[in-house]
């Protein structure tokens, strides 16, 4: 089975971010990056699928990251948990999700994926549209919010994914025919830890860097504003009276 996983490298939650002078871009240099946490569940699900059906897991990754060495470390560890090869589209800074999707499809078209996994959301951009756009471009079915996955094989060319989705009032069970795009959410699995032997093997797995081929964007970022959190701060002095007040606040307001 040809299995693709879309992975985004994003600045870690604690990274202090600045905006460039033109207010259009997030300054990403010298920041610590991580794999978008929901994409880690996608990767784990991809590997489990491969363990069931055999085949190949291809990572297709993108990031605003300009530090290639850092990206390689992250993606090598993704290879170490069981993917077979990785394509990294470097420097997608300021790209709309639609443009990223176009580039992903460009590099995946020869692979002809039977199934494409990705995280339900890119938590850094707070965006969920990527899997949907990818599926549209590939003319595939797509399910989001997948929290459980099983398969039923009707015959060699006919595999059904049985998915559980989170919906407002509870859970929904849906069957979807492969090929398809599945956007997974937290809870679908416990990602495995990289194993020593796999890290060694991962060193020789193909890791290819690519420039974005398609660069004409339909969207243009006008402006990015950093929101300053207006939290209410109270300083409690170390007197018994104030401590009692604090206890009261904790009791009533939480």
């Amino acid at each position, binding site marked *: 089975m040809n299995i693709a996983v879309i992975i985004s490298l994003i600045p870690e939650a604690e990274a202090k971010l600045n905006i460039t002078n033109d207010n259009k871009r997030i300054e990403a240099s010298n920041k610590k990056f991580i794999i978008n946490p929901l994409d880690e569940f996608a990767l784990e699900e991809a590997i489990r699928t491969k363990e069931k059906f055999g085949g190949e897991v291809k990572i297709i990754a993108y990031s605003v990251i300009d530090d290639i060495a850092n990206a390689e*470390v992250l993606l090598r560890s993704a290879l170490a948990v069981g993917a077979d090869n990785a394509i990294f589209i470097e420097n997608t800074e300021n790209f709309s999700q639609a443009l990223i999707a176009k580039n992903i499809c460009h590099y995946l078209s020869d692979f002809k994926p039977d199934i494409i996994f990705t995280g339900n959301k890119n938590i850094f951009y707070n965006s969920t549209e990527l899997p949907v756009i990818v599926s549209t471009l590939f003319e595939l079915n797509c399910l989001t919010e997948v929290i459980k996955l099983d398969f039923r094989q009707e015959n060699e060319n006919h595999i059904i994914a049985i998915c559980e989705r989170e919906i407002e009032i509870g859970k929904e069970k849906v069957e979807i025919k492969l090929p398809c795009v599945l956007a997974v959410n937290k809870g679908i699995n*416990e990602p495995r830890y*990289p194993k*020593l032997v796999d890290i060694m093997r991962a060193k020789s797995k193909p890791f290819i860097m690519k420039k974005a081929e398609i660069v004409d964007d339909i969207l243009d970022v006008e402006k990015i504003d950093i929101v300053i959190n207006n939290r209410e701060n109270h300083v409690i002095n170390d007197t018994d009276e104030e401590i009692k007040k604090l206890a009261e606040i904790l009791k009533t307001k939480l």
Partner: protein
Amino acid sequence: MIIKTDFLESYLKDESNYLGKANSVYIPENEDELQEIISHCFNSDLHFTMRGAGTGLTAGSTPDKDVLISLEKLNKIKKIDTENERITIEPCVTLEQLDTYLKEYEYFYPPNPTESKSSLGGNVATNASGSRSFKYGPTRNFVTKLKVILPNGEVLKLERGKNIAKNGKLTFNTENNTQISIDVKNIFNTNVKNASGYYLTENMDAIDLFIGSEGTLGVFSEIELKILKRPQHIIGLIVWFNNFDKLYDFFSIINSKINKYSEVQPRIIEFYNTTSLNFLRATFPQIPETANYAIWIEEEYNKEDEDKLLENYFNIISEFSNIPDETWTAMSEEEHKKFATFRHSLPEKTTELVRQLGHTKLSIDVAVPMPLLKEYYLKVEEVFKGLEMPSCIYGHISSAHLHCDMFYSNAQEKVLADKIYSKVISIGLDLGGVVSAEHGIGKIKRQFFYQMYDEETINYMKSIKSTFDTKNLLGNNNLFY
């Protein structure tokens, strides 16, 4: 200065849960106020006990009468000197605070006691150690200067290397030029990881007497520590074993600095027994089913040595582990964070037992001479075998120091736990071990402290105390009855 006569019960307890007594709590806001209150106690014959962060496990910072002095407000980092790799701090800076500060400078403070909320003053007073102590040693190895306020309010400034015992004598000069002399004898076992009583040896450095003195000789008001450049690359490994003998053989090889895999030079080697892993399985279902024991390793390395290092580890692990392919590995910062969650899970799980299910923890802190470690472990495992109450054995195997914890929940279990506790301590002492390797004696291990040393030695240590604390006011009931 804040003075409280009506205060929260939490000031009368540390993490051992032993409940103390005091009439007032003093919270000095600076060093001058600290000195003032100490002199006040001395002049008024008030007993006083020092409290850092209160994370101790032996009730050392729990007052037994009169006054508790809480250092919580003396928590400033005074200066960093990167050229000489030194940092000067007030005593109640916490490990967490220090690490966050040093990160900015790309430095770190190597001893790594697990409780990151503990204060450096408390760490020095208990000579705390942690997972990285295998490579770097305990707190002691990183204390370069101490400013000590003696119980009578006089100040002593100590610097490592400046005052070494000669012909069995050590002489101290206070800032007021008072001279204090003590006779030093070899009583402290330096061959075993040790936090049991005063560091007294014939060729000792004066500063070492105060490190590990458990708040009984003087109060640290300023501390200078040695710091090191943060290593660029660290590899973490969790290796699984189904059999203790194999684990021990593996450990012996990586623990010896000269081995056929001599490129393997871990800075951390920690142990988990079967019951420890069972605690962890609830949160980490990924732990391999056939794993009965585990070892966690960390090593610093240079990028160019990475391939060779991985290969070396893989070869040696394959020789001893039944499931070498399952060895978990952390290389990126994210992966190390996941490992940290794994490690912190064990204390969290056991604290849950205590806080939510009302169990009481009994924690054995014995270390033995390295050549006898295996014998010690097997005997202890035998004692713990079939125990009905929750228990776990884990920790610093590379210092021949394992924590053996039991969690009892009723009177019957308490009797049994107490019995096991005494038994294990006797096993340790018979093998030339020490009662406490890390947490100190405080108030709750005095019985075993008196079992470890003969009367003459105890009296000798008491005489050292009264030389510095002439009225016997500081840290009442710590170490001695």
